[in-house]
Structure formats: structure tokens, C-alpha cells
């Protein structure tokens, strides 16, 4: 029989179906409802892995996320590093193996889908145990919008581990009814397999739903594997239960040693016996249930070892009736066995003194040192914790607005108490929301709790042996022991944060779920201070690990960032354009013809624009419609030059600076009417400039009667550029007189094409005669094609951003963000002409007067011509003083500036560059050096305008 430890009956597994899986190369079987851990235990396997530093065997020690022992790597259906055997639901075909500390990432991309959903509720209940279910029912019955999330595969919480009764029926029947009732409330969202892992401000909770993990390879591909729920709750009820706490003793890490309740869980929920011969070591009454249940299931319970001098009189009687020996006033001081515990060493324990140990053979040792309420979410919400002397644990120490803790998470450890607490807490939450509880909201009944004997708070079994202290494990995953804590304290450390860092306790996969409080307790003991003063380290999200991909959700690949494309995008693609990312936009960079590389394509495109006619899709240029009686006043304040003097029908180039006087954007401004301007911005600056305008208008000058609206996407823009552009535009728009006299440079005209409104503007970013054609994007393709047709006789050539850059650079027109870097003023760019001297003030003006702005060695925009007429200077190259011997001196070499733009020029028949150079305008005519790949390239400093400096071509 491959599952010798499977009980004959019972448990919430589907025994009719058998699942095959492979662990560490062994083929094993289990059933739906199993976890990997329960299936391994059913086969008799406790050891899962070896420990990271010491290589000691480690096994399954708990039945859920608090387990520090059962780390596994899943290999099939898709590699996933570091999961807990206790939380992996079994499915057919699962392949996994134990993990000695480091997980392995897949080397192929994960093709699973992940997504996120926003959800808003009145009451969010976290945890579907008894307290959580009562709370959710209470809120649902009151008509509230409710979400109930629970990390397990089914509701019930601690009830899944036991044999409790609620309302006189088996507790899980009551759970089933509760779940069914919740399903009938239309405003209730109930999610299992969903872990609330983070609590943030204003009732914001993040929860991860594992939707298809448990289906293995059968998971439907179109369903997201995991989903992040972003829940906004007006009120949160945290009913997350409690984690059992171990007691530390020598060799407490052997496979076969597990928390007492875990044994009950494996028995009742999964139908698995954790062993044949058990010893139960406890400091409180709760572990007696495990002893009794196991005995009833046929396990030989060798002894209950109770550290309390008098034990628990009542529970002792029960044990005696079941034939179980109880050793009160005793402790486990050590264990034997390598891959599996073979015996426990048990010694008398009186007044803190440990006596001589005797050996009790066993194959499983169950431990309970009490309970740690799962206060993680409360603590993440910045709730203060209070140390409870009786429980030996940290419990919520204050009331928070909008978040309350119920049940054992709040330190209530009995079932009836938890049910009542769930109701009390949800009613308080409802009342804060002014929601009236339903009249029929009845509190379910549970047997009167038997008052337990007082627990003993025992962090570790006293042991004077240093060797033993080195196997008294506090954090099993980190192989960190009592000896390590003692060394930390001995080194002078007092803060629990320092102890954590010194020992690495609490930094592993489980984030200290079992080790954290123990460390506080042991540290306090060693320092001789109260545990309250030691405190805990901070609880940080996430509560349990979350896959990166789940958090990335759908924001990957093309959806990582929106792609903006112009109305002509498909045309560009069809024309074979090579694209460039500019902000979020996809812009054609050039249009290679067969056999062309970028260089030849660009030379061809440039030549067309300089000698014939070219056309470019400039639709990405930012466009802002500025309207209102004070529109001109606003623009005067924001631009360095005067805009109010612009005539309707005319266009002006303008520069904008930040308050620090540095250029932030530039572009042309069309005056459409006395009270209306169309502001063109750079492609990348569009949103920034609109925000900038809004900020000033709203926060500083609310008196200005002006409105700014983005119309970037309302206008497609096609500059038609080159000496033959007049012919093209004149042909297509015969109604417009395109002569220089009738349609001068820097003016615009409205016209129409077959009834479609079109705006033409004589703006040039190349120095050539040019017309910008503006049209609604709905007609963009048609107008573009009509322009191409009209241009065919002249060889009209579409060109991309690269050619645009060459053309503008030949004319010395800077690109903001390329030829500037946030440290450049208009004066530095040689644009003093664009800085008004008449205006008393504008944004940035005052900064021009600062001492650093007067420095004659400021960097200025100049042109550079490599003397060899051949070398293309890499953009970004640094510039140094001319070195006579042509050898670069050793560093540090003072730098004069850098190359901002660099191209081959068809027009100049040589490469050229723009650069920011210290005192550059003074240096025109000088030769300087540019280091390129280890050699010094001599370059001549020139003015920044290299083509048509007289501006003779703009009128064609």
C-alpha cells in the first residue's frame, strides 16, 4: 500500500478519485482535497528537504502557511520556486521536490495570465473560520455589501481541523449552511483560496485569489491563473485566527516534529495519521485534543508531556480514560533520529530546573507552546500590539478606525467565544456605518467552553549546555538557534531589530510566523527585560509570498505602457517605416526602401526635402487650444517672448522656461482669434505643458479668464516641406493663394478640401519652404493620400523623425530634451532674441539674473564640424581642449561640453554636430578634440546654423 498512513475513512478528500504525482522522483498518489503535505504524510514521508546552512533534514511541521519546514519546488506543470507542501493543493501530474533553501526560476517565460479586479464593499471579512463566518453572515443579513475572503480551499478555518459542533450539528454542516446562505445574498462576494496579504490606508486591502493553481495542467488557459483583488472596504473585520507556537528544545527540528493542531488537521481534514507512536509536548490544554483524537484514531500516544507543574487536572482525567499517560511538570529536552524522529527525551521540570531525561520512543512529536494570534494585518494597519502575559503572545493593543479584529486573531481561543466575538465585532462595525443588524441575525450556539487550566509561557526548555543551544532551533529556515540569539545579545545588541539582523531570524520564506514571538521572548529572557519592551519586529506586507507576475497583472508586453499611434499608423506600417518610441508614441523614424540602411534612407529623404518635396506625419506634436479674454496674458506670462502682440492669422515661435530659468519646451503659437491661440508643443512635452498651464492658471492666476484644452488628438498634422511644397499644396488647395505675398511665412489660413476643414500654416522646422497641413484625424488618411498624389509629379517623399532631426539640426534648431537637459537657458541656446526685454516679468526671468547665469563659461549651443570631413561624432561624446600631440592625457581631463546631436548631411556633404560647449560662442573658429573610441577627433567649432544661415530658402 502506497499510503500506509491514510485513515480508513473520514477527512474531506475524495477517496473515489486517485491523483498521481511525483515527489523527489518517486511516484505517489493522493486524492482531490489533499495538499502535497498531506499526501506525502499519507505515504509516510515527513522529511521534505534539508536545511539551508546545516543540511539537516527538515519535514512538515504545520498544516498551513506557518510551516517553516516543508519547502518545495514545483517543476510541473510549470516551475515555481519555493512553495510550502502544506499549501500546495494536490493535482494530477504534479511534479515537485524538496528544496534545500533556494528556489529555481523557470528558464522560459510564464505564459499564464494574471489580472486584477477592483471591488468596493461596506464590510470586508478576512477569514472564514467561526468568527469570520458569523461576522460575514451578520453583515450580509443586515444588507451590507460584503466580501468574505479566505486563504484555504474551503471555508471553516479551525473548524476544518477538529470535531466541534455548532448549533448542535457537526460544525462543518453549519459551515456549509453559512456558505450557502452567503451565496444567496446578492451583495456578498465570497472568495476561497484568496489571501488578504496587505492592508493599506483607508480600508484598502489587497488579496490574491489562486484561481486555477489547484487544477494543474487541466487549468483552462483563458482563465487568469491568479487574480489580485484590490478591495476598498469601509470596514474591515480581521478574523485570521491564530498560529500555534512551538516550544524550543534541543534538536527540535527533526522531521516528525510538528505542531499539535497540525496533527489534528491532517487527521480530520485529510484523513492522514502523522505517525504510529506519538508524544505530545504542551504548555497548555489545547494539545490534549490532538492526543485524544490521535489515540481515538489508533495512534499509540506514548505520553502527554505537560510543562505545567500541575498539568491540567481535567484533561488528565480524559487522558487517563483513554489510556494516555500524562507527565505533568515535564518537558522534552531533546530528540533522536536523523531523517525522522525516533524518540523524545523527556525530563522532569520543576521550578525552572530540568532533571534527568528518559527516552520515550516515538515517530511523531507534537508540540504546543500556546497560540500567537495572527495579528499581521492589524499590525500592517499600524495597530499597536500589546503583550499578553497570560497568552504569552502579542495581541491587538488598540482600537483602529475601520479595522477590527475578531476571534482567535484577537486572542479569543474558544469556539463559543469566537462565534460571539465575530458577532460583537461586526455589529460594532455595522453600527459605525449606520447599518442596522437584521432582526433574525442569530448567534449560533456552541458548547459552553470548559475553562482551561492556565497555560504556561515557555519559550524554550532551559538548557545549560552550549552544544544544545546550537540545536535549539528558533528559525528552522534560517537554521538560527538560541545560541545565535545569545551571541547577538552578547555582542551588545539590545534591539529586537538588531537581533533579527544578527541572527537572520524571521527573514526567510515564512517571515517569522512561528519564530518571531519566540525570538522576542528569548531575547527578553536573555536581557532580563519584559517581553513588552522587546516588542516585535515590524509586520510587513505581504502576509504570504505573492508571485511577481500576479502583481504585474496585465501590465506586461504591449500593455506595459499604452502605445499611442497616429491616424496614419497603418499607412506607416504598410510603407515599411522603422519606428522610434517618443514618449508613448510610435513615430516613423525613416522609411527604408529595399536595400537601404538608415544612413542611405535618411540621406535620400533629406535630399528630397531640400531639393524637391518631402512630407512627414507630425501629428504627435502637442496641441493646446488656449481660449478666453485673458489667453494672451497667460501666454505672455509663460513664454519668454511676447505673444500678445501676435496678430490674428499669424504664427510665432516661443520658448518656455521653468521658474529656474531653464528651457522646458518650445514650439509655435498660432493666433486664431483675439481670444484664442493654438499652442504647439513638442511631442514629449505636450502633457507637461498643458499641466504647466493648468497649474499656473488654477493655483496662481485664478483671476485669468482662460481655458486650456488638449487638442493633440483632434488634429492630424502634416508638414509638407521643400522647394516644391508650394506646388503640391497649391495643387491640392486651389482656393488658397499660396504665393509668398498672399500667404507669408509664419501665417496660417483656413480652407477646405471637399468640404473637410483644413488649416494650412507656413511654419518651417527645416529652413525650407514648408506648409503644415492640419486636418481632423478622421480625414487624415484621405488628406495624406491626396497630398501624396498631388506630390507625385514632384517626387514627394515621406520622411521620418531622423530626417526631420537632420534638417532642423542643419538649421541649428534645438530639440528640447536632446540639445537641452534641464540646465540650459534660452540664452545658452543663442535665443536671446526670443526673450522679451519689454515684458516686466515672465516665468523664469528672475532666474536669468542669478550669478551662475552670468558666467561667461556657461555652456552654449554651437555647431561642430569634424575636420576630417568624415567622422560622425557619436551623440553624447564629450569635448576636450585641443591636445597638441593628439594623445589624451590621463584622467581627470577637463571637459568643455558634449555633442548633443550629430548627423551626416546630404546638403553639407559631411557630418556635422550640435554641441553644448563652455563659452562656446566665443570659441567659434577654434579647433577642439572629441575622444571617439580611444582617438581624438579634431573638430572645428562653428555657429549653430550650418545651412542657409541667411534664411533665404524659407519662401522657396
Amino acid at each position, binding site marked *: 500500500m502506497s499510503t500506509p498512513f491514510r485513515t480508513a475513512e473520514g477527512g474531506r478528500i475524495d477517496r473515489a478519485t486517485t491523483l498521481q504525482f511525483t515527489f523527489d522522483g518517486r511516484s505517489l498518489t493522493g486524492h482531490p482535497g489533499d495538499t502535497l503535505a498531506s499526501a506525502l504524510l499519507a505515504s509516510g514521508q515527513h522529511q521534505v528537504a534539508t536545511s539551508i546552512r*546545516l543540511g539537516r533534514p527538515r519535514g512538515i511541521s504545520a498544516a498551513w502557511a506557518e510551516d517553516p519546514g516543508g519547502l518545495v519546488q514545483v517543476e510541473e506543470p510549470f516551475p515555481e*520556486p*519555493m512553495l510550502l507542501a502544506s499549501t500546495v493543493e494536490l493535482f494530477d501530474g504534479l511534479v515537485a521536490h524538496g528544496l534545500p533553501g533556494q528556489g529555481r526560476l*523557470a528558464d522560459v517565460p510564464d505564459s499564464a495570465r494574471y489580472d486584477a479586479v477592483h471591488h468596493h464593499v461596506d464590510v470586508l471579512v478576512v477569514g472564514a473560520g467561526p468568527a469570520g463566518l458569523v461576522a460575514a453572515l451578520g453583515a450580509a443579513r443586515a444588507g451590507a455589501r460584503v466580501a468574505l475572503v479566505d486563504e484555504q480551499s474551503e471555508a471553516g478555518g479551525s473548524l476544518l481541523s477538529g470535531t466541534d459542533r455548532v448549533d448542535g450539528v457537526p460544525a462543518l454542516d453549519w459551515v456549509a449552511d453559512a456558505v450557502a446562505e452567503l451565496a444567496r445574498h446578492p451583495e456578498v462576494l465570497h472568495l476561497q483560496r484568496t489571501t488578504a496579504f496587505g492592508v493599506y490606508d483607508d480600508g484598502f486591502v489587497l488579496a490574491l485569489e489562486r484561481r486555477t493553481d489547484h487544477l494543474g495542467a487541466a487549468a483552462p488557459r483563458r482563465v487568469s491563473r491568479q487574480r489580485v483583488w484590490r478591495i476598498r472596504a469601509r470596514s474591515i473585520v480581521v478574523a485570521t485566527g491564530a498560529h500555534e507556537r512551538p516550544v524550543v528544545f534541543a534538536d527540535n527540528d527533526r522531521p516528525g516534529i510538528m505542531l499539535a493542531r497540525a496533527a489534528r488537521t491532517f487527521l480530520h481534514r485529510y484523513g492522514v495519521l502523522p505517525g504510529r507512536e506519538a508524544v505530545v509536548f504542551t504548555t497548555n490544554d489545547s494539545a490534549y485534543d490532538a492526543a485524544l483524537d490521535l489515540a481515538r484514531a489508533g495512534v499509540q500516544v506514548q505520553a502527554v508531556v505537560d510543562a505545567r507543574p500541575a498539568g491540567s487536572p481535567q484533561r488528565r482525567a480524559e487522558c487517563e480514560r483513554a489510556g494516555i499517560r500524562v507527565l505533568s511538570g515535564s518537558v522534552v529536552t531533546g530528540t533522536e533520529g536523523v531523517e525522522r524522529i525516533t524518540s523524545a527525551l523527556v525530563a522532569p521540570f520543576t521550578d525552572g530546573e530540568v532533571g534527568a531525561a528518559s527516552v520515550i520512543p516515538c515517530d511523531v512529536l507534537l508540540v504546543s507552546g500556546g497560540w500567537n494570534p495572527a495579528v499581521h494585518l492589524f499590525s500592517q494597519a499600524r495597530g499597536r500590539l500589546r503583550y499578553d502575559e497570560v497568552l504569552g503572545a502579542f495581541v491587538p493593543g488598540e482600537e483602529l478606525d475601520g479595522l477590527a479584529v475578531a476571534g482567535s486573531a484577537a486572542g479569543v481561543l474558544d469556539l463559543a467565544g469566537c462565534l460571539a466575538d465575530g458577532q460583537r465585532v461586526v455589529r460594532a462595525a455595522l453600527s459605525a456605518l449606520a447599518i442596522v443588524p437584521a432582526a433574525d441575525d442569530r448567534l449560533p450556539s456552541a458548547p459552553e467552553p470548559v475553562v482551561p487550566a492556565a497555560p504556561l509561557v515557555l519559550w524554550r526548555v532551559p538548557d545549560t549546555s552550549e552544544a544544545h543551544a546550537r540545536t535549539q532551533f528558533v528559525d528552522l529556515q534560517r537554521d538560527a538557534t538560541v545560541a545565535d540569539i545569545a551571541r547577538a545579545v552578547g555582542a551588545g545588541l539590545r534591539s529586537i531589530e538588531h537581533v533579527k539582523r544578527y541572527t537572520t531570524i524571521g*527573514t526567510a*520564506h515564512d517571515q517569522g510566523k512561528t519564530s518571531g514571538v519566540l525570538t522576542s521572548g528569548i531575547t527578553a529572557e536573555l536581557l532580563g527585560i519584559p517581553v513588552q519592551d522587546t516588542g516585535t519586529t515590524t509586520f510587513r506586507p505581504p502576509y504570504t509570498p505573492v*508571485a511577481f507576475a500576479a502583481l504585474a497583472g496585465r501590465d506586461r508586453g504591449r500593455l506595459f505602457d499604452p502605445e499611442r499611434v497616429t491616424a496614419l499608423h497603418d499607412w506607416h506600417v504598410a510603407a515599411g517605416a522603422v519606428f522610434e518610441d*517618443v514618449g508613448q508614441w510610435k513615430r516613423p523614424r525613416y522609411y527604408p526602401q529595399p536595400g537601404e540602411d538608415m544612413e542611405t534612407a535618411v540621406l535620400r529623404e533629406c535630399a528630397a526635402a531640400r531639393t524637391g518635396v518631402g512630407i512627414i506625419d507630425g501629428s504627435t506634436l502637442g496641441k493646446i487650444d488656449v481660449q478666453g479674454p485673458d489667453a494672451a496674458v497667460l501666454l505672455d506670462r509663460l513664454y519668454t517672448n511676447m505673444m500678445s502682440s501676435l496678430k490674428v492669422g499669424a504664427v510665432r515661435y516661443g520658448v518656455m522656461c521653468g521658474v529656474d530659468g531653464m528651457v522646458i519646451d518650445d514650439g509655435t503659437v498660432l493666433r486664431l482669434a483675439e481670444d484664442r491661440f493654438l499652442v504647439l508643443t513638442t511631442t514629449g512635452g505636450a502633457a507637461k505643458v498643458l499641466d504647466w498651464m493648468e497649474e499656473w492658471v488654477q493655483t496662481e492666476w485664478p483671476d485669468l479668464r482662460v481655458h486650456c484644452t488638449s487638442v493633440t488628438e483632434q488634429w492630424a498634422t502634416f508638414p509638407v516641406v521643400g522647394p516644391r511644397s508650394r506646388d503640391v499644396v497649391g495643387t491640392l488647395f486651389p482656393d488658397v493663394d499660396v504665393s509668398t505675398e498672399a500667404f507669408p511665412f509664419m501665417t496660417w489660413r483656413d480652407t477646405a478640401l471637399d468640404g473637410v476643414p483644413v488649416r494650412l500654416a507656413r511654419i518651417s522646422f527645416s529652413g525650407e519652404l514648408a506648409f503644415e497641413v492640419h486636418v481632423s484625424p478622421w480625414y487624415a488618411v484621405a488628406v495624406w493620400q491626396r497630398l501624396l498624389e498631388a506630390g507625385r509629379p514632384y517626387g514627394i517623399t515621406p520622411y521620418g523623425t531622423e530626417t526631420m532631426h537632420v534638417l532642423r539640426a542643419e538649421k541649428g534648431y534645438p530639440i528640447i530634451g536632446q540639445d537641452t537637459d534641464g540646465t540650459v537657458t534660452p540664452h545658452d541656446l543663442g535665443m536671446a532674441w526670443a526673450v522679451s526685454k519689454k515684458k516686466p516679468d515672465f516665468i523664469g526671468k528672475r532666474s536669468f539674473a542669478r550669478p551662475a547665469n552670468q558666467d561667461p563659461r556657461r555652456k552654449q549651443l554651437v555647431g561642430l564640424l569634424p575636420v576630417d570631413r568624415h567622422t560622425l561624432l557619436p551623440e*553624447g561624446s564629450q569635448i576636450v581642449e585641443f591636445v597638441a600631440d593628439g594623445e589624451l592625457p590621463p584622467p581627470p581631463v577637463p571637459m568643455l561640453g*558634449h555633442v548633443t546631436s550629430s548627423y551626416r548631411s546630404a546638403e553639407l556633404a559631411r557630418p556635422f554636430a550640435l554641441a553644448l560647449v563652455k563659452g562656446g560662442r566665443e570659441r567659434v573658429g577654434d579647433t577642439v578634440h572629441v575622444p571617439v573610441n580611444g582617438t581624438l577627433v579634431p573638430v572645428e567649432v562653428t555657429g549653430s546654423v550650418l545651412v542657409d544661415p541667411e534664411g533665404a530658402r524659407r519662401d522657396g
Partner: protein
Amino acid sequence: MSPRIPGADLPEHPDALWRNPEPKRSYDVVIVGGGGHGLATAHYLAKNHGITNVAVLEKGWLAGGNMARNTTIIRSNYLWDESSGIYEHSLKLWEGLEEDLGYPILFSQRGVLNLAHTLQDVRDSVRRVEANKLNGVDAEWVEPDEVRKICPVVNTSTDIRYPVLGATYQPRAGIAKHDYVAWGFARRASEAGIDLIQDCEVTGFTTQGDRVTGVRTSRGDIAAGTVALCAAGHTSVLTDMLGIRVPVQSHPLQALVSELLEPVHPTVVMSNAVHVYVSQAHKGELVMGAGVDSYNGYGQRGAFHIIERQMAAAVELFPVFARAHLLRTWGGIVDVSPDASPIVGRTPYENVYLNCGWGTGGFKATPGIGWALAHTLAHDEPHPLVAPFSLDRFVTGALVDEHGAAAVAH
């Protein structure tokens, strides 16, 4: 038994770290803030200048602020001469620090790649690399195929949203173990007789004319000959007490780690456009960060959408990270200055020196600034390495703007 996993065994800390003395009534030098900078300054005051009547006052636990929370990226490939001066000086000190401190600080020179995703990124990168070379900082521009060789898990395919167009590479850059660094400095300082006083919050100053005579603390008044403010995110709280205005804003900055993973990521990768930076620390965990939370915050925590965005960036750039798990997130308080450069030097009080504004990138400067600030305090004169970072640059306009071309500031 031998360790099973490479890197599983972090080096042991020493058996003795520091004394826990009661504060004295008076010290020659009082350093406010026991983070990396304060502790390094203390060490170099003792070591280089023989000044040991010094107290480091720390309001919480030693080095529990940003020093305990940063992602430990160390590099010196900054754009401007002033910056590469101090950071390169620091990097050289890092190279000998393990020996100097006698502490295994796990300084690992595994190199850093700063990825370029747009043509402008490429220009800025080349500009920075060329400037670095001329300043004697090791730096090179690498093409995508070399990026792939240096870090095979980076997604260099051309069909991602923002393809990798290349990167700058500084081979001498790397990471170190932050606690080990802080504790190494602390141990040396303590050994030299410097008092490290924890749970000691400076709550005010006593002044006489243009001089500060002492500090008021949660553990009593302490007289001081010279005061150095090394309070990082809390600088403004202290300068407000002195009536000095400093142009820093304190922002939350978050970071996170994964579980321990087999080695996949041999270097440090930073990307500004697809905003994330990643290294795989010694034990095997992926350590990551991104940008600050937008608002001012002293809460040592930030919002989750910042983490989600960072995860999207991480999976976009490193598809194999998809099923790595987020284990823990946390936040620090970073003191961001207008030009992304530090503010170090004199204040209107003759004997008060300021050290702040390191923002998201001051860990790498720890030995460098400790060294230079100690020199400054000992000579009562800003050391040339820190002189360009004076407060009055904001008045003259002579900023050291590290946003523009080196925008990844970590």
C-alpha cells in the same frame, strides 16, 4: 555538516559589536543620526584625525533608518565632475573597506548595467560614459548582445514595449551588505572610544549667538563643540529647530525582496524608462526598488501601486522572474534635493555642519562622505570633495543637476 547552498552562509558577525554607554555631559563633536553616514563620520574622525571625544546620537536603533532599508547599489558613474569626484572617492574607499573595518561587508563588485530604452537614453548614456572615462571612472557603453552576455536574463528581444537599446556598464560597481557595513563602522568607532548612544533623540539645540552650544535630547542635554547633522530623511525636523531652511523634501522610498533563488542575476541592472532596479543578493534573494512615492512622507511606508508597477517593470525586463515571489516590502524616508545632489557643508551656525540631500542614493557614498565630512569637521573647512555641494548653490544657481542625464539616482 557543510552548507548546501552557495551564499547560504553569510559570514558570522563578531562576538562583540559595540558598547552601550550612558551619554556624557559633553563632547567635542556630536553627530546627530546613527545611520551609515553618521557612523562612517565617527570612524574617520577617530581613524584619520584622532578625534574620539565624539558621540553619535541615534533616536532609534543604530543604523535602523535608510541604512537598514536600502538596496545597496554602489557605483560612481555619475555625470558631473563634482558628483563623480565624491562617489569615485567613495568607491575607492569601498575597495579597501573590508580590510579597514576588519568586517566581512560582502562588497561584491559585480558591475552595474544602466539600461537605455530610447534614443535619448542612448545619447544620455554615451554622454555619461564618456564623461566617466575622462574622469577616470570605469565605464563603457555596451550593445544589447553584450548586455545579454553580462546578464543573460535581461529581455533583450526587440519586440517588448521598450526594447533594450544598450546600456552603460561600470564593472567596479556592485553591492554590499548594509548592516555589515554599518556595524563595521560602529564597531570601529566604539572601539576607538566614540560613544554610540541609541534611543537618544535630539529634540532641540542650545545656542549662543552664531554658535550652537549643545543638543537637547530624550536622554538629557549634551554640550557639543561641533555638531554634524546626519539625519537623512529627518534633516528638516532638526534644521527647523535651528531656524535654518534646507531645500529637501522627505519622500517614502520602497524596496522589496523575493525568496532565496538559485543564482540567475549576476550583476546589478537599473532601468529608468522601465522603472526598476534589481540585484540578486548574496543569499539568493532578488532585491529591487524603483521610484519614490510622490508625496512627502515620514511614515517609512508607501503605497502598493508603486510596488505593482515595479513588478510589472521587473517581469517585463526579466520574464523569468514571473514566478518569483514577493516576500517582503518596506520603506524608508529619503531626503530629496532639487538637483538630485547632496547638500553638505556650512550652515548659518558657525559650528553646525549639514549633510543631507543624498535622497535615493546615499548608501554608496557612506565611506566617501564619512571620510570627507570627518575631514571637514576636523579642519573646520569644507573638504574640496564636498565644497561644490554647499547650500548656497541654490542661491547662485550653480546646481549639480544629476536628473537630466543620469536620471537613475540610486
